[in-house]
């Protein structure tokens, strides 16, 4: 079973300058009743995107036609709250391939990486530069280079490097899946079990 491969991407970005975006906002609990992984993107940020009557809230960045692209840029502590992987699925299913923030909640980060959604953690200062670049030009382009672990604001050439676990980087670049890896070390696991009994 493979995850989608990722190497390099140049695209526009959608700004979400809100802190502590929790997984109940990303995908409210009432949309977690599915038994398959389908259609979660439709309900991404459901209660921020639509009003009670189901009309689009036009001021919300995802509904604003001037923004688009495959990068979501959010303020600090993105993905806090529950462990629901549906949150990562929803972000990916909507069409984002990268989420940028100055700080990610741990479980969300793991969930994203396990699904081919790249998380790029940058400094608070660099994050503000990204928001400023989008404010100056909503069609501003950004480059995410996973092999070199860099994120570039194309218009200004401003570049920052980002950290990623070496194993996870390999997985993302090659589309490897953790379960396949764990199944491949079955003998080690059995030896470990025997050593404990």
């Amino acid at each position, binding site marked *: *079973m493979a995850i989608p491969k990722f190497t390099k991407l140049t695209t526009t970005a959608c700004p979400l*300058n*809100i*802190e*502590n975006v*929790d997984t*109940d*906002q990303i995908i*409210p*609990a*009432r949309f*977690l*009743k*599915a*038994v*398959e*992984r389908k259609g979660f993107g439709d309900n991404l940020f459901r*209660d921020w995107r639509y009003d*009670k009557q189901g009309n689009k809230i036009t001021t919300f960045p995802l509904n604003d036609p001037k923004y688009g692209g495959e990068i979501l840029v959010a*303020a*600090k*502590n993105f993905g*806090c*709250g*529950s*462990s*629901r*992987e*549906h949150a*990562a699925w929803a972000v990916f299913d909507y069409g984002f391939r990268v989420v940028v923030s100055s*700080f990610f*909640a*741990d*479980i969300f980060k*793991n*969930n994203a990486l*396990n*699904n081919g959604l790249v998380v790029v953690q940058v400094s608070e200062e660099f994050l*503000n530069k990204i928001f400023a670049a989008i404010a100056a030009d909503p069609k501003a382009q950004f480059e995410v280079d996973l092999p070199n672990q860099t994120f570039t604001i194309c218009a200004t050439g401003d570049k920052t490097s980002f950290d990623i*676990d*070496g*194993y*996870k*980087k390999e997985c993302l670049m090659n589309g490897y899946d*953790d*379960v396949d*890896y*764990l*199944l491949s*070390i*079955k003998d*080690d*696991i059995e030896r*470990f*079990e025997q050593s404990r009994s």
Partner: protein
Amino acid sequence: MGKTLFDKVWDAHVVRQLDGGRSVLYIDRHYIHEVTSPVAFLGLKNRGIKVARPQQTTGTPDHNVPTQDQDKPVTEEQSRKQLESFSQNCEANGIEYFKLGSPNHGVVHIVGPEQGITQPGMTIVCGDSHTSTHGAFGAVAFGIGTSEVEMVFASQCILQPKPKTMRITVNGKRGKGVTAKDIILYIISKISASGGTGHFIEFAGEAIRDLSMEERMTVCNMSIECGARGGIIAPDQTTFDYVKGRNRAPKGEEFDKAVEKWKTLASDPDAKFDTEYTFDAADIEPMITYGTNPGMGIGITKTIPSDEGLSGSDKVSFAKALAYMDFKSGEKMLGKRVDYVFLGSCTNGRIEDFRQFAQAVKGRKKAPHVTAWLVPGSKMVEAQAKAEGLDVILKEAGFELRQPGCSACLAMNADKIPAGMYSVSTSNRNFEGRQGPGARTMLAGPLVAAAAAVTGVVSDPREVFNL
């Protein structure tokens, strides 16, 4: 250099260490529920494999179950399908599960400990962030995503980066009317909703040692609300006494042998933590939250803080939270209108919580305009409450017990708080819309909830109940 308790348990479960920091971690106990497991089961099916160690997994449906008429078919179609699929998956893979309505059924983080499945020194995971609850026993327990649930199904292991360690020491004795919930809400208000991110927290100090097992579970349960992967408390006599005699606990000589081993589970005196905080229990009063993350809590007699000192997105987020709650800086929390009261959840759905609530409201009446949902965490809690006559006390005061489930904590079932309404809730999250679209949540402990239920406004339980 000595080892922390967390390091001791973690290191004993590392099967293999990968370059870049990830460990292949062996999992002793896996809990599952109906919401985060279906796609993992589907993944196994697509790979043509079955659950590798079904005897190490226990299931219970809780997030999506009705809390009334559990003996009748579930009416909501999607929920019913999810529950049916859960039963089928457990049966097809030989996994024991506690069926809705059966005597052992309940919320996953309540039933694991009460059955004695959760024990000191174990690694425990579940596709639910409040798995941190089980750390109260000196276990390394944390929430995982569905991909990781599939990893555990397939191999009984997960790949995981090792978190940093943090120790939070709470010294001294707590005051009257201060519950475990107040201690943890106080800690989160001090270190913020993200202050524990990347860490595993050991809770220590006299005020923590003084807690009962159920209270320790409340504290560890909310470790995730400051962003931590989990919380852990060194096991002691309180722990051993709790585990002894439970269904799945070791028996006789086996138990004594286990206790000898469990006694070694403590941080060495010279162990170093990456981060340390120290608080004084005497500074803690009954707490309540005023905003939309669990870090936005204050002592119940305090006023809502201002945004002074905040800038940029901090300031915007603070204003957004107050606008959602329709609160203003400088206002007192005391006297705020309360429409709903929720007692329950994996945070405060245990028998001691129901005793505390029932004893408080005994001889009083529920405020007429308040809707109260009292949801036991399990069938065993429900049965115990009835055996002790708590249901009668509650009925006389105008309350009734519902049936076990996660209920209004996440409002996935029909227990939704209507838009704009104010709820004093003993659950763990006050996020926008958490208890229903537009619902406004004030988190608190069972005593503050009881005071709100009888007065109809936010009240200090020490005054209302003469504590």
